[in-house]
């Protein structure tokens, strides 16, 4: 698993590559905390997690997302998910995380 942060004008984008599982959930969590901090420091209200290059995420990764969502709420930062592949779409449905997070087709925010 690797992640890359990109601070745009309207949001901080976290691109996740590879797989988030028992071996990588801790560093994924650290990456999300970093993104939330960056957004807060830049006065941005959005962190978008770009899932395009993510193979899949196990329950560990999903639970890290919930932890990040709570951190985000304290920092007035909204976390959303963008461009999941087919496998990740299924996992989001099976876990019912599609009810907890906004999931968009692309990383562009449409307001």
């Amino acid at each position, binding site marked *: 698993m690797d992640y890359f942060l990109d601070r745009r004008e309207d949001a901080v984008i976290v691109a996740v590559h590879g797989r988030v*599982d*028992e071996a990588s959930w801790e560093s994924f969590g650290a990456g999300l905390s970093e993104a939330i901090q960056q957004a807060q420091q830049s006065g941005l209200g959005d962190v978008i997690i770009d899932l395009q290059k993510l193979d899949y995420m*196990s*329950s*560990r990764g*999903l639970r890290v997302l919930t932890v990040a969502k709570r951190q985000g709420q304290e920092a007035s930062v909204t976390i959303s998910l963008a461009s999941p592949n087919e496998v990740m779409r299924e*996992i989001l449905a*099976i876990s019912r995380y599609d009810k*907890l997070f906004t999931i968009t087709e692309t990383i562009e925010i449409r307001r």
Partner: protein
Amino acid sequence: MLVRFWGTRGSLPVAPTAMAIRHKIANALVAADGRRFENSADAERFVDRELSFAAGSHYGGATSCVELEAGNGSYFICDMGSGLRSFGLDSMRRNAAGHKKTYNFFLSHLHWDHIMGFPFFAPSFDPEATIRIHAAHPDAEQALRRQQEEISFPVPFDWLRANIEFEQLTPGKSHEVDGVRIETKLQQHSHDSYGYRFTDADGRAVIYSTDSEHKLDKMDVEAAFIEFFRNADLVVFDTMYSLAESVSMKEDWGHSSNMVAVDLCHEAGAKKLALFHHEPTYEDEDIQRMHEESIRYEELTREGSPLEVICSYDGLEVRV
């Protein structure tokens, strides 16, 4: 080892309504599409082959009670939910055929749905029966006596005729009971709960881990569960909620999800997972969908050898 499920429902016993049975029969007749059956065995073959489990059967509504046929001839039973009543009657038939009248119980915890069957456990009136209740909770005896106090039940605990003993288990320590090795693990649940690992003389291992929450902010303690489940032949696991429910509205309600079950079993190299402690508001179709989704999630995330995901129902027998 043979594992027999007498009660698989969580929290509260449930039963299908008249409407639910009518619905199943009507749908089965439509599916049969005018076919003729020679006899009921022929019709049952149709049910088995052509109807889904939810359409042609029922997961059952009795609360937690799981029997293990293991060891040197005494009974091994996990929990005393409402499923215990049927087990008690069945065991008396077996006793009449010569089975040893020694019952070894292992209690996950003392919540009502896990002890409510004991006042209806007929062998407790048999003066020749020995009932050994193993629990890591020091207040197990108090819980069982209390539910038979006059305000709750007409027959007090002291009227029971069997020889009843309480055995205190120590988590982390290995106990030997009638040829079976038992290990106990503390779990996250209101007033605590304990998981059990049963290993027979052939080295077959069955895990009973119900009413156990795997919390968001305590994922680092899961390594100990993976060790506890290591290479188990069967893991019976509390899969009451979806992952999203378990981390949102139902956080701290003390239960877990199918996805955490699959992840922990994968990491432990377990061979078979039995989904257990079904949500009482779920219809058969809901439980079946949860089972199908669990199988799919296992496929999507599998890296090593496959984990077989089965869904427990009242009456299921699994040989390991």
